[in-house]
């Protein structure tokens, strides 16, 4: 009990001391009004360079390659450092400061028309995505090789953890959700789980090479949801299609206006849509909350030392708490995405109604 009290009081003192530099820095360089909304949106959005740290007017960031295809001038490949953090145009391209394409590269035609070229730039999210993919491949292949070399020896440590997660998702999520033919889908669903999980975790690390809002980006979740949609609808059984186009309902619901089929078709589309939005919104919201709580420090900087210091402590405590919640969410969202994908695949694997499966009583229980 004594130890704990000591620990907590020491921590609070340290947090208070940490608050002062933040305040003094802001006192020194207070030039512009802080736009919280813009700041958060900017951090959530993609960018053409990987920002590491910014102090005042100095930006330290890693430039990333810009790949563009313009209808008038063809392919372009150059470093994003040519834009000087979005302040200068290059080869007729520039990063839009505002308007419809804010934050994106636009092409200004000689007439003054602003248009977007085909933008395949390796942005921050894309780079983080590739990094995470490599990490996932490295981890899983490493574990697979380690297990393959000596399968009889039970593992501890990291290999054991990955094995445990794999088995948990395989046995507790995929197998019961899909049923008999689960083995066909298990590797893909496991890949999805680890891909989302690692990306979520990397997003929580504020330092390079983490911190990108990859799974909180709709492009990413869109691709994931589309693949689930394709798997569900391309490997469905005959009975599944019959239930969509000719469901077992009174005929007037199907002819002349195909009411039920329309409802069913909409249903097949809403399922992946929900998957896409759920993952995207959860992760983005998590990043927003963490950023917002951190911003508390800088918002209150102008309110004096006492308020600023106490709010800093509060902000750090809240941020730590939310980060812990986010760790949990990182796992839960990967889990839920995998679970729902498996459930949707399982629903498309139905057999015809008359020969319903005989419920085997579990004697073991």
């Amino acid at each position: 009990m004594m130890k704990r009290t000591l620990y907590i009081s020491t921590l609070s003192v340290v947090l208070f001391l940490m608050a002062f530099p933040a305040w003094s820095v802001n006192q020194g360089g207070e030039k512009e009004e802080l736009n919280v909304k813009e700041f958060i949106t900017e951090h959530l959005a993609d960018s053409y360079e990987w920002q590491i740290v910014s102090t005042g007017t100095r930006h330290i960031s890693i430039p990333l390659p810009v790949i563009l295809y313009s209808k008038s001038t063809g392919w372009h490949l150059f470093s994003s450092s040519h834009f000087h953090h979005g302040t200068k145009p290059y080869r007729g391209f520039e990063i839009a400061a505002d308007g419809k394409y804010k934050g994106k590269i636009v092409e200004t035609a000689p007439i003054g028309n602003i248009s977007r070229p085909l933008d395949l730039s390796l942005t921050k999210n894309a780079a983080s995505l590739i990094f995470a993919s490599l990490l996932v491949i490295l981890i899983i292949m490493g574990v697979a090789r380690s297990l393959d070399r000596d399968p009889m020896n039970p593992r501890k440590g990291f290999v054991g953890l990955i094995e445990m997660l794999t088995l948990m998702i395989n046995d507790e999520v995929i197998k019961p959700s899909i049923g008999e033919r689960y083995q066909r889908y298990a590797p893909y669903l496991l890949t999805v789980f680890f891909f989302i999980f690692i990306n979520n975790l990397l997003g929580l690390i504020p330092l390079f090479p983490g911190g990108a809002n990859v799974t909180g980006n709709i492009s990413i979740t869109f691709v994931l949801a589309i693949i689930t949609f394709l798997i569900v609808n391309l490997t469905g059984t005959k009975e599944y299609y019959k239930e969509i186009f000719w469901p077992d309902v009174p005929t007037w619901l199907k002819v002349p206006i195909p009411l039920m089929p329309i409802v069913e078709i909409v249903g097949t589309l809403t399922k992946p849509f929900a998957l896409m939005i759920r993952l995207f919104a959860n992760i983005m919201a998590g990043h927003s909350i963490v950023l917002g709580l951190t911003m508390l420090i800088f918002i209150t900087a102008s309110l004096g030392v006492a308020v600023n210091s106490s709010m800093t402590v509060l902000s750090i405590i809240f941020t730590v708490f939310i980060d812990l919640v986010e760790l949990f969410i990182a796992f839960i969202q990967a889990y839920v995405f995998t679970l729902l994908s498996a459930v949707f695949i399982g629903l498309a694997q139905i057999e015809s109604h008359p020969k319903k499966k005989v419920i085997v009583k579990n004697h073991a229980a």
Partner: protein
Amino acid sequence: MSLLTPEPGLLFWMLISFGITVFLLVKFGFPMILKSVEKRKNYIEESLLAARKAHEELAGIKETSEAILAQTRKEQADILKEAASRRETMIEKAQEEARMESEKLIASARQQIDAEREKSLRSIRDEAAVLSLIFAEKILREKLGTEQEQEKMIDRLFNELDMSKS
């Protein structure tokens, strides 16, 4: 809002990187892990079965060894019993034989003794006869020293003869 519209660039990179990830992991990664785990599971199950079998076998061996031990013990007892009975009969037989032998010996000894006694009796009787004759002669000689006496004797003898004849 740009946050809600998919970016073609990011879609492109996502498709490539996720595609490669999926290809590698679906083809090599997870099947390998699941196979290894399955292998281990089977191995553990087999080991458990083998252990149970060995255990049962051990119990069987124990049982048979106990049975063998019991049988041997029984046999031992039987042998001991038989030996004891044989010993008894042997002793009995020996005793019988000894008795018979001794009886025979005694019988033959008695016979011999009888024969000896007979012989000695006969010799005694002979001796006694001779002696009595000698004594009788001497007595007669004493008694029949005079004529009178001799005649008296002859008369008595005649009388006795007559008496016995009649």
